[in-house]
C-alpha cells in the first residue's frame, strides 16, 4: 500500500506492506533508532512515539494506520525548543540509567505535559505506568516529572 506520513516534520511517501509495523518502518526504513523494541505486547513503552500528539506503542501500531498523520520520534522531539527543559530536569535528577526506556519515557512525559493532565503525584504515577524502567526505581523520574509539571513530589 501507499503510505504518506509526516515524520518529525518531514514528508515521507513510500510503498509498504500492509502488515508493516510503525516501529519497523521507523527503525529499519527511516533509520530512526531512538524508538526501541522490547516487550512487543504494548506493556513496556520503550517503542513509544507520538502520532498526532498522542503516545502510541509503535510495536503494535500498523505503519499504514499512520497514513496522513504527524509522527514524532525522540529525534524530532529533541529538535524542539521545549525539549531542553525536559532534558535538563531528567539530567539533574539522573532520571535515566541504561537509557533503553528513556526515549519512550520522555515522549510520554512530553505528551502528558502538553495536555496538562499531570496534576498530582498519583496522576503522574498512573499515567506513566505504561512505561517500564528496570534500572532507576522510578523515583528520580517521578521527581523530574513533578518538577516539570509543577506538582509537589
Amino acid at each position: 500500500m501507499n503510505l504518506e506520513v509526516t515524520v518529525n516534520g518531514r514528508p515521507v511517501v513510500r510503498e509498504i506492506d500492509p502488515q508493516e509495523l510503525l516501529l519497523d518502518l521507523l527503525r529499519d526504513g527511516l533509520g530512526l533508532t531512538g524508538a526501541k523494541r522490547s516487550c512487543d505486547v504494548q506493556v513496556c513503552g520503550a517503542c513509544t512515539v507520538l502520532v498526532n500528539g498522542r503516545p502510541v506503542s509503535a510495536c503494535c501500531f500498523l505503519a499504514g494506520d499512520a497514513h496522513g498523520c504527524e509522527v514524532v520520534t525522540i529525534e524530532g522531539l529533541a529538535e524542539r525548543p521545549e525539549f531542553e527543559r525536559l532534558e535538563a530536569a531528567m539530567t539533574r535528577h539522573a532520571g535515566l540509567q541504561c537509557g533503553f526506556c528513556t526515549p519512550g519515557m520522555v515522549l510520554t512525559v512530553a505528551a502528558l505535559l502538553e495536555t496538562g493532565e499531570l496534576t498530582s503525584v498519583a496522576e503522574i504515577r498512573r499515567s506513566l505506568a505504561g512505561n517500564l524502567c528496570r534500572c532507576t526505581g522510578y523515583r528520580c523520574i517521578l521527581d523530574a516529572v513533578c518538577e516539570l509539571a509543577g506538582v509537589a513530589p
Partner: protein
Amino acid sequence: MTTVERPSVGAAQVGRSAPRRDAAEKLRGRAQFAGDLVVPRMLHGKVLRSPVAHARIASLDTSAAERMPGVVCVLTSADLADIDPYWGHAIRDRPVVAIDKVRFSGEPVAAVAAEDEGTAVAALDAIRVEYEELPVVGTIEDALTPDAPIVNDGPLRPGLFHGLGELKPAEGNVCYRYRIDRGELEAVFAHADLVVEGEYAFPAVYQYAMETHTVVAQVEGDEITLWSSCQHPFLVRAEIAALFQVPLSSVRLVVPYLGGGFGSKSYTKMEPITVALARKAGRPVRIQNRVAESMVTTRRHGMRCRMRTAMTRDGRLLGRDVECWFDTGAYADNGPRVTATGGDAAPGPYRWEAYRVDAACVYTNTAPSGSYRAFGATHLQWIGELQVDELARRAGLDPLDVRRLSLCTPGEELRAGGKPLDADLVGDVEQVAEAVGWGTPKEQNVGRGLSVGLLAAGAHPVSSAIVRMEADGQVVVLVGTTEVGQGARTVFAQIAAEELGVEAERVTVRGADTRFTPYDRSTGASRSTTLAGLAVQRAAANVREQLVEISGTEELDPDAYPKLFQRHFGLAGGELIGRGEVAPQGSGSYAEGPVFWEVCVGAAEVEIEPETGRVHVRKTATVADVGKAINPQLVERQDEGGTLQGLGNALFEELIYEDGQLLNQTLLDYRVPTFEDLPDEMTCVIVENGDGPGPYGAKGCGEGSLAAVTAAVATAVADAGVPMTELPLTPERVWRRIQELKEEGTWPR
C-alpha cells in the same frame, strides 16, 4: 574510621554528583545499542527453538527452508563437525545448537540467516523436526529422585572460568556442591534453648533487561568480530576463541551501550550461535532475541531450602544448618558460582558457634539459569532473617537487639581463610531501622522488618586501564568495563579528573572494544568502581607523574597543559599515556576472596489487606555502605533500582514452569514493577567509612539493596502476622496463609 588520603589536586571531582556523561545521548535517542547497528551486507538470523523440554531429535530436515528465496543458509549441528561444539564458562556442557537431543523447551535446534527478518521467520516454519519425547525432569524434586532421568549424561568438563577449585564428577543431576562445616553443629543444637526450622521456596525469576540479547557477528578468515550486548567482553572473547580455535587476538568484541544487564548478559550467551551462523553464511549476521527468547536464554535460579537456626533464651545466636538446591536448568551457565555465593550468604553475618551449609546445583529440563543481581544473597537472606525474627519473637526480644548482640563486627572472620568483615553492620542496621520508624507504634495489619546480609563481591580482581592526555589537555580513558546503565563512564571520568586536577567534563571514557581497551575481567559483582576504578586511578596518577616530571613542579596548572605539551614535544601534539593495573595479591581465587563484602542491609514497613492478601509497601530503607561515594547521586540510583527489583522479587515476579514448559512468557503475564509499585517512602542511606579496597576507600554497591529489600519485605510481612515460606508473596499466597492462620487461631495475632 579514617578516610583514605587522596592527592590534593584541583577542585574535588570525587564525591560530587557530576551529571551523567551519557545523559544527552540517551535522552536524545542518539545512544547506540547493539540492535541499532547496521553492518554492511548484514543478514538477519533467527533461531529455531525446541517446543519440547526433553527429547531425542529423530530427524531434522532443512531442505525446504534452504530453498526459500532470500534464505542464505541454515545452521545445524552438522555444520560444527570441525570444532568441539560445546561451550560454558563454568562447565563446558552446552552445544552451540542441539546435538541429537534437546534438554529444554526453547533450546536452539537450528538457525536461519536470511536477507530480512520476515524471510528468516518464515524459513523457521519450513524446517521439519521430529522429536521422540523423553521423560521430563521438571523440578528440583524430580531431579533428586533416585531413579530420575539424567539431564546431562556426559562427563563434566570444566569451562575456562570455572574458578571454584577442582570439578568433581556429577552425582546424578547434581553438577556442583558447595559445603561448609564449622564447629560442633549437633552439640550446639542439642543444647540450644530455642530452635526454629522450616522448608522454603524461592522462584525462578527473569532479569528483564529491557534490551534483549543482541549480537552481530562477522567472520572473515580467522578474524571474528562481534558487536554484542554483553557485560563481559573479555570472557566472551576467550570462550569464542577457544570454541572456534583461533588466537585471542583474532577475536574482537565491541560493546555499545547496554540496555540493562543485571547479570543476564554476563558471560557468553547468544555469541556462539551467531558466530557459527555468520561463519556458514560468509556474511555478517545479526541475531536479536525477542523477550520470550531471552526468558529462556538465562534466568535466576529457582531454589528449595531447608534451614534451622538455634539461639539462647537471652538472644545469642548459636548455630545454623542449611541445605539448599539451586535449579540451574539444562546447562550449568553460572550455576556453580551462584551455588557457592548462596552457600556463603546462607549463614548470614552472625557470630556462630557452629554452622553447616550444603548447597547443590541441580540440572533440570528447564531453561539455563545464570546470574541475576545479588544472586545467592537474594535467595537465602530472607530465609535466615525470617528465622532470626521468629527466634526473637519466641524469646520476647526486639529483633534489632538480637542483631546487635550477634552480628559480626569489623575485622571478624566470616569464612575460614577468606576476607574478614570490612563493614559496620550494626551501625548500618540501626540507620535503616530508624528510617522506617522502628520501635514507634504501628496500626493493625502493619508490619516492619529488618534484614542484614552480605554478598561476596568483586569476582576475580584483574582490571587494567589506559589514560591518554592529548595536547589540548583533554583526557581519554580506555577501560574494558561496559556501560550497562550503572554510570561507570561518569564515575571513571570523575576519578581520572580528580587525579589530573581537571573537570570531569574534560574526560571522555570510551566503550569497551577488546581490540583497543585493555583487559578488564568483567562488569558485574559490583566490581567496576572498586577494581576498574582503581586501575583508572592508577593510570591517571601515572599521567600526573609524567606531567610533574616534564613540568618540573608538583604545582600543576591544568589550564597550562597545552603549553606544557608545546614546550615538551616542540609541537601542538604528542600525548602522555598512563597505565594502571590491578592484579590479585594472592591467587585471586574464590576461597581467598572476596575482594570486599557487599553490605545487604535494609528495612521495610508494609500494610497487609487481609481481605485480598495484597501487600502494600509503605516504606523501604537501604544502606549503600560504599566506603566512599565517588558520585553520591549515582549511588542512590543504584540502591533505588535495586529496591524496586527487590519488591518485584518479593511480591510478584515468578517464571511459572509446568512439565518443563514456561507458562508466562510475555510481559503481560510476567509482571515487573511499574511506577505504581513505588513505595510511599524510599530512603537510601549512604555510609562512607573509607573501608573499601577501591579508589579513595571506595567499594561497590548496587546489588545489596535487592537482597536486602526482598528480605525486609518478607520479615515485615511476618511481623504483620503472616510468616511466609515461599516467594513471591502474591495476594493469593498471602490470603491463603491468612486462612490457615485463622484455622490455627493465630490470626489476627
